[in-house]
């Protein structure tokens, strides 16, 4: 189980390849990658992600531990960036490995739902018209009730 919180970019292909390498015990590997989407018709200049150093690592480690207690996982990985990100850049990724696909999928979705609403990150979007903090979505909070 691993958590990496970092400002620099990560190599998506290399990370998934490394995660999957030599996993003879896991038949199923799921990954999720979050990308800075250029929402407002090319208006987005950049996103800035603020986080709470210390709490971020603790919160994500706790979410991972919860996932491991609920599903049969052989490995899990969370990478999440902070700082300045441009449209098209990868914000974060989650990967899960399990013997069976149902567990790998469920754990990855669980990790994502909790990262969205329970890990201390805040996004601010900068367009030529100004800057705005991204509001938490009700649907993201509601998604937690699935688990």
């Amino acid at each position: 189980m691993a958590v990496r919180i970092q400002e620099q970019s990560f190599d998506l292909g290399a990370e998934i390849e490394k995660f999957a390498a030599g996993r003879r015990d896991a038949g199923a590997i799921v990954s999720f990658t979050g990308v800075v989407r250029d929402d407002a018709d090319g208006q987005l200049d950049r996103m800035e992600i603020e986080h709470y150093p210390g709490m971020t690592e603790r919160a994500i480690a706790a979410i991972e531990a919860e996932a491991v207690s609920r599903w049969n996982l052989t490995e899990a990985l969370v990478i999440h960036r902070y700082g300045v990100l441009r449209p098209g850049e990868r914000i974060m990724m989650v990967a899960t490995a399990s013997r069976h696909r149902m567990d790998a999928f469920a754990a990855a979705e669980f990790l994502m739902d909790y990262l969205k609403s329970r890990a201390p990150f805040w996004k601010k979007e900068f367009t030529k018209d100004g800057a705005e903090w991204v509001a938490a979505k009700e649907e993201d909070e509601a998604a937690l009730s699935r688990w």
Partner: protein
Amino acid sequence: MIDVLYFAWVRERIGLPREKVETNAETVVDLVEELKAREERYAAAFADISALRVAVDQELTDFSAPLKGAREIAFFPPMTGG
């Protein structure tokens, strides 16, 4: 003395990321009332605490949580990670 941290628009409204606060507040909400009484910028940041989240010693909790023994309190809007 307790470390009080602010993030995102709470940090922006209050105008600083962290400060040390001398307090005898028994709960988070008591501390919030003390801060609101200080200056307008605090009153503005804490105007609607239902729009805020709080962590005591890096664990999410609620505004009725006791502060006894706490070293670090953080206030911030709902998280938007992922």
